[in-house]
C-alpha cells in the first residue's frame, strides 16, 4: 500500500520542502535561531570546558529541530485550511496521513540543517573539538530519533487542526520541550514530578542518546534499550495520530465542518 502512494508522498515532500526553504520564518527557525541559542549557550557554558562544545552543538540543533517540527508539521494541515485546499486533500484517494507524512519529511530534511549549522558554528567559530566519539551509533540514533520526530509531527498536525485552542499555545510549546527534553542541561535540575513528562517525549531519549554517542559514553545495552523505547513511543504517537486523522476525515465527509475555523 505504501509503495502505491510513494509518488504522492514524494510530491508532498518536494512541495513542502521547496516552500519551506524560501520561507523567512523557517529559515530563521532552522538556521538563525539555533545559531543564536548556540552562541548564548557556548557563552554561558564557556567555563564548563571545551568538551561541552559537542553537547551545546547537539542540544541547539535539537532545539531548532523541535521548533521546525512544531511549526512545520503542526501547520501541515492547518495551512491547507488557511489556503482553502483542505477539502481537496481530504477528497483525494491518497490517505491524508500520507500527505502529512510527506510534508513532515520535508520539514525534517530542512530541520537537519539546524543541527549542521550548530555543529559548524561550534567548530569553525569557537574552535571547539567537535569530534563525535561514536559516529556509527550517533547516526543510527539520529535516524531512529528522526523517525520518532516524524511520528510526533503526524500527531501534532491533526491535533492542531481539531483543537484551535491547542494551536494557540504553539509558540508557548517551544521552551517547555527544550527544558523537559534536557537539550542543553540535564533534567536532574528540574523538580521530580516533571520526570514522567520527560519520559513520554521521544526527543528526550533522542537527545540523551545523541549526547552520549557524541561524548563516547554510550553503552551498547543503553543504545538498544532506549532505541526500542524511542520506536515504541513513535508507535504510540502514530496510534494517537491515526485516531485523530479518523476524526478529521469524519468532520470532512460527514459533518462537512472541516474548513470552519
Amino acid at each position, binding site marked *: 500500500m505504501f509503495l502505491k502512494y510513494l509518488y504522492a508522498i514524494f510530491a508532498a515532500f518536494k512541495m513542502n520542502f521547496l516552500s519551506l526553504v524560501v520561507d523567512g520564518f523557517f529559515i530563521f527557525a532552522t538556521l538563525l535561531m539555533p545559531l543564536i541559542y548556540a552562541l*548564548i*549557550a557556548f*557563552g554561558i557554558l564557556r567555563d564548563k570546558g571545551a568538551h561541552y562544545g559537542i553537547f551545546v552543538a547537539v542540544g541547539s540543533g535539537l532545539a531548532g529541530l523541535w521548533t521546525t517540527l512544531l511549526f512545520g508539521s503542526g501547520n501541515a494541515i492547518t495551512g491547507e485550511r488557511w489556503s482553502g485546499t483542505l477539502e481537496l486533500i481530504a477528497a483525494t484517494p491518497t490517505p491524508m496521513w500520507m500527505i502529512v507524512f510527506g510534508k513532515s519529511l520535508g520539514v525534517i530534511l530542512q530541520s537537519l540543517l539546524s543541527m549542521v549549522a550548530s555543529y559548524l558554528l561550534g567548530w569553525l567559530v569557537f574552535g571547539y573539538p567537535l569530534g563525535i566519539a561514536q559516529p556509527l551509533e550517533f547516526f543510527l540514533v539520529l535516524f531512529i530519533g528522526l523517525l520518532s520526530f516524524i511520528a510526533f509531527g503526524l500527531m501534532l498536525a491533526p491535533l492542531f487542526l481539531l483543537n484551535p485552542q491547542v494551536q*494557540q499555545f504553539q509558540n*508557548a510549546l517551544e*521552551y*517547555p520541550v527544550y*527544558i523537559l527534553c534536557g537539550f*542543553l542541561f540535564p533534567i536532574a535540575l528540574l523538580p521530580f514530578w516533571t520526570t514522567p513528562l520527560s519520559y513520554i517525549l521521544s526527543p528526550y531519549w533522542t537527545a540523551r542518546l545523541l549526547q552520549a554517542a557524541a561524548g563516547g559514553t554510550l553503552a551498547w545495552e543503553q543504545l538498544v534499550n532506549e532505541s526500542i523505547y524511542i520506536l515504541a513511543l513513535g508507535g504510540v504517537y502514530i496510534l494517537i495520530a491515526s485516531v485523530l486523522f479518523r476524526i478529521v476525515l469524519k468532520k470532512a465527509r460527514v459533518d462537512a465542518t472541516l474548513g470552519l475555523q
Partner: protein
Amino acid sequence: MHQLITNLKLFWQGAALSYVALFSWLRPTTFLASMIIFPLGQILFFTLLGIFATGRDSASFYLIGNAMQITASAGIFGVTMAIGGERWAGTLMYLFGAPANRLTIFAGRATIHIFNGVVQVLMGLAWGLVLGWVSFAHTDPLALGITILIATFSTAALGLLLGCLGLVTLNIMFINNLVYFLLLLFSGANLPITALPQWMQYISWSLPLTRGIAAARFIVDGASLAEVAPLLVGEFFIGVGYLVAGYVLFRIFEIEAKRRGTLEAF
C-alpha cells in the same frame, strides 16, 4: 484646544482599538500563551541553563536579565503587529487616507503594549521571587518601576521602527523574530556585556534594553535611583532615537506608497 482634544481622542482610540483587535483576533488563549506561558518558559530555560553552568548563586543574573528582556515580547511582536498588521488587515489605505495627525496614530499604537510589557516584566520578576531565585530585600521599588517603564518604552520604540518595515516587507515575522532573539544575545540578558567581543559590545550599547537590564540588576542589588540615573537617561534617549527614526520612516513610507500606488501591494 479643540485640535488637542481631537488628537488625544485619536491617540486613545488608536491605542485601545489596535490592542483589542490584536487579541480579539488572536483569541484570549493566545493572550494567555504569549503573555504568561511563553515568558515563563523563556525565564525558566535560561535561568536553569545559567544555574547548570555556574551554580544557583548566579540565578538572579539570568532571571532579572530574562524578565526584563521579556518586555520585548510586547514591545517587538505586539507593537510590530499593531503597525504592520494594518497592511494585513487591509486597513492601511484608510489609515493613510484619514486626515488624522500622524504622530498620534503612530505613537498610539505602542501605548498599551508598553503597559503590557511592564506587566510582563513584573510577572517575570514575581516568578523569580516565587521560585526563590531572586531577593528584593534591598530593592527600591520605585527605582525598579521607573527602570522597567523606561526599558519598556525604548523597546517599544524599536518595535515601532520594525512595524514600519512591516509596511513595506512581507517578511516581518522573520525580522521581528530575528530582532527578538538578537536581543537575547546582545542585551546582556544572558551574557555579561564585558564578555562579548568589542564589536558586539558596540552593537549592545546601541540597542534598547542593554542599559535597562544593567540598571535593574544594580537596583535589585541595592543601588539607588541616582546611582543608575546615567544608565536610565541613556536608555531613554536610545528609545527616543528609535521613536524618531520610526516616525520618519513611517512618513517616508506613507509618502512613497501614495506616490507609487503601492499601499496594498504585496
